[in-house]
């Protein structure tokens, strides 16, 4: 299986999940600015939307995209890893609720902060909204190690990846110590360390 990724982008979430699940991946780096692969070929031919992540499951089929879906696909390949609860259970919907929350309330809000067309007022509004969401997460992590409680799940990999972007914006989590503790907890996991090293985000 091949994962199309860019260092530190949301493709880090499926990358972490694959390592936690013990699924070997071929990592293919995408130059998101030029939309090119290392061999110079056009990434739009892989994913017409031009973004990461995308996974190639079978050569004959289109890639699977959208981080919150890709992580579920990977987790479901290794049910014993418990990275996603069993389909149809109440716990599964809880996990999907968190994945959707990360995708829409965090991930997509963050994206506006990097568009030069976004007005300064809009950026301030978006930052305020993100801080509201961080406050909710901070409260959650006061009494829970992970989003689903005691166990690490694919939702945590996604949340970790996206919340990490505060570091690219001169924002910080000083006001949210329990959320920061969650970030540190996830970062310390051996498989997460492996993924960060493989993407060149920390020294190998």
């Amino acid at each position: 299986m091949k994962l199309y990724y860019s260092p530190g982008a949301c493709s880090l979430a499926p990358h972490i999940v694959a390592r936690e699940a013990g699924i070997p991946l071929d990592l293919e780096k995408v130059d998101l600015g030029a939309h090119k692969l290392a061999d110079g070929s056009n990434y739009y031919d892989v994913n017409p939307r031009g973004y990461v992540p995308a996974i190639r499951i079978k050569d004959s089929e289109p890639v699977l995209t959208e981080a919150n879906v890709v992580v579920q696909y990977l987790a479901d390949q290794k049910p014993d890893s418990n990275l996603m609860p069993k389909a149809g259970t109440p716990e599964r919907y809880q996990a999907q609720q968190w994945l959707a929350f990360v995708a829409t309330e965090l991930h997509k809000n963050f994206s506006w902060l990097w568009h030069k067309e976004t007005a300064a007022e809009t950026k301030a509004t978006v930052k305020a909204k993100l801080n509201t969401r961080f406050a909710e997460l901070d409260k959650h992590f006061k009494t829970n190690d992970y989003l689903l409680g005691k166990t690490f799940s694919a939702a945590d990999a996604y949340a970790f990846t996206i919340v990490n972007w505060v570091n690219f914006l001169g924002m910080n989590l000083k006001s949210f110590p329990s959320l920061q503790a969650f970030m540190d907890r996830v970062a310390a996991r051996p498989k997460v360390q492996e993924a960060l090293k493989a993407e060149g985000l920390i020294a190998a």
Partner: protein
Amino acid sequence: MKKLTLISHVLCPYVQRAVIALKEKGVDFERIDIDLTNKPNWFLGISPLGKVPVLKVGDDVIFESAVIAEFLEDTVSPPLHPADPVRRADHRAWIEFASVVLSDIWEFYTAVNEEAFERKRKDLIQRFERLEARLQAGPWFDCETFHLVDASFGPVFRYFDVFDAIEDFGILAGRPKIARWRKALRERPSVATAVKPDYPERLRDFIAARRSHMAGLLLQAA
């Protein structure tokens, strides 16, 4: 001449100046790229500031890129500075200018928030406005002959080849003399081969691994 060894780093712009000067003078040298995040002891032993480039001349060691360039100028022909003292001083001053631009570029792509990023972007616009006014007929800084001052701007424009693929930051736009000079530098063999072909990818990875506004732009670009 004694054996020359240039201690280098794959991304360092100051190393590139020395490499370009060596190539322009047709000097044989060995290049050793080191990991600056994990500097080997033998390197720390010979580099007083712990910086690259360092030029080993037999058993002697020369550090600081400007001094290395001057040493090559003193010892190997053809000269890359003009003969006239006033023109030579002018070239040296513009090499200093190139160093300031390199430092602006560093602060630009490592700026940790949008405000600092925007501030440096504006600084860079001003620098290139001055440079555009200084340039003459071309193709080189001083018309027909390639000089050391040209070598010092090769690495400057190389950054923009990578930046341009991320976004148009409007820094070099609308400056025809700079555009022409930039193209001539990109095509000059000594400049083109002063880095390895994977330089753009390595620079992008270096940016992505930093916690900066530009790194954010890089991971969002799609």
